[in-house]
């Protein structure tokens, strides 16, 4: 049976550093991402199909200059990965109790979420590079070295905008099934608005709303980043709008996020 001794006699285990936790989690989350090949292909396939359409159709100039059209394709990929891909993965793992299992380990909770976000950001960067290569191959769109670097930096900011929207959606909706349906519902206006921010085919009011929607602001920012010589006051405004969207949605996502589905 037992000795009446409080449980303090074993050598004390030490909690590992946050950095080590992050490294271990990143390795696991990256393995999950790499294994999900269908998701990787789909995240690049959609922007590539749009890219082909925007360069192949006769009236494609309605959507602006070639760089803007490439920006729209990258925007589509970032929106899909951030709003649907990320929030769905979070909701599914939350429903299955994966987060709770991780939270009882000595890993700080911020490392659990940051590791997932970092993997999504990497996926967005890969998608953007694939689209840029395809844009050169299909539409002959070439950027300066500075343009390529700035574009990838802008993708990082866009990742902030749409991952924070994904986080807010996952925070507000707990059920994975409801989130799946709602995510698709949110995706349509986000993508639709980003398409018409630089075209008045639906009227100037829609154009104005589109331009300052999260997708519209991000595609303006991307278009400016692709051609740094055209960077203007409006590009700065798009940059600030993107920062503001990130702050608001990240705040909501953190405030309302729950680790359990119940």
């Amino acid at each position, binding site marked *: 049976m037992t000795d009446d001794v409080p449980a303090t006699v074993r050598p004390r285990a030490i909690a590992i550093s946050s950095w080590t936790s992050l490294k271990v989690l990143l390795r696991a989350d990256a393995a999950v991402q790499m294994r999900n090949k269908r998701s990787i292909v789909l995240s690049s396939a959609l922007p590539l199909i749009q890219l082909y359409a925007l360069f192949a159709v006769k009236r494609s100039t309605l959507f602006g200059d070639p760089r803007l059209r490439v920006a729209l394709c990258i925007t589509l990929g970032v929106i899909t990965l951030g709003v649907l891909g990320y929030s769905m993965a979070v909701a599914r793992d939350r429903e299955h109790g994966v987060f709770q299992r991780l*939270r009882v380990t000595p890993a700080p909770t911020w490392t659990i979420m940051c590791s997932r976000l970092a993997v999504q950001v990497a996926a967005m960067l890969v998608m953007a590079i694939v689209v840029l290569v395809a844009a050169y191959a299909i539409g002959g769109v070439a950027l300066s070295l500075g343009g390529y670097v700035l574009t990838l930096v802008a993708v990082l900011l866009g990742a902030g905008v749409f991952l924070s929207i994904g986080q807010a959606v996952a925070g507000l909706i707990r059920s994975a099934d409801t989130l799946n349906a709602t995510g698709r519902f949110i995706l349509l206006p986000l993508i639709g608005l980003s398409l018409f921010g630089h075209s008045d085919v639906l009227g100037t009011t829609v154009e104005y709303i589109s331009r300052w929607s999260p997708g519209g602001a991000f595609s303006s920012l991307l278009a400016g980043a692709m051609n740094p010589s055209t960077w203007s006051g409006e590009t700065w405004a798009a940059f600030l709008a993107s920062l503001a969207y990130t702050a608001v949605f990240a705040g909501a996502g953190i405030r309302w996020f729950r680790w359990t589905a119940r």
Partner: protein
Amino acid sequence: MSYGSTVAVDSVDLEVWAGEIFGLLGPNGAGKTSALSAIEGLLRPDAGSIMVGDVDARSHPLEAKAQMGVQLQSTSFHADLTILEIVRLYAGLYGVKLSESQLRERLSGIHLQDEGSKRFRELSGGQQQRLSLMISTIHDPPLALLDEPTAGLDPQSRRQLWDRIEGFRKEGHSILLTTHSMEEAQAVCDRVAIMDHGKILAVDTPAALITLHRDDPRVRKVAHGDVTLEDVFIGLTGRELRD
């Protein structure tokens, strides 16, 4: 600890000793899982203190978590990782460095040496529980918290898991487990606490509880022949159904 206006755990005072298996018993909704969740750091108590050894779990949660091994009631691991990757992940989170051969040795120890490349969902219930217990104790923690570890297992798997839990105790570890099985509590627990409506009703060894409550009219009323731990449990917590 409360959820809105509902008090889930109220003034619970428990001590688990070194090298003992302590069972927390109670009907559904009694507050067992909430009490365990507070110790695990998943829920924040409104008041009180939680010490794991000499570590204050409320002010040093990460250090306290390093002293504990936890098996949750409904455990799930990353669906897309293999068993080997899952073990490597959790070993890493507890700072345990395992070589490939050591990893396989651990799996061999729970008879899962051929399942390393499978996904968690592909394992049987018994295999999942064995893996889950192994992962919970991979860092050799002083205290293991097991929430209904044998729920849903067949008798063979349940007995095997009892052996593992008892083996863990023999190595000097403490175990706090919850269970609905009075047979399990009587077979493996050194001491048990009966809990209901968030409060502890009784704490002692199973044999002492039976002796102490043998003549309690509430217990006599529900007993069929010799008084068992289940009779004491039903007598103290009542016969009405809980959801």
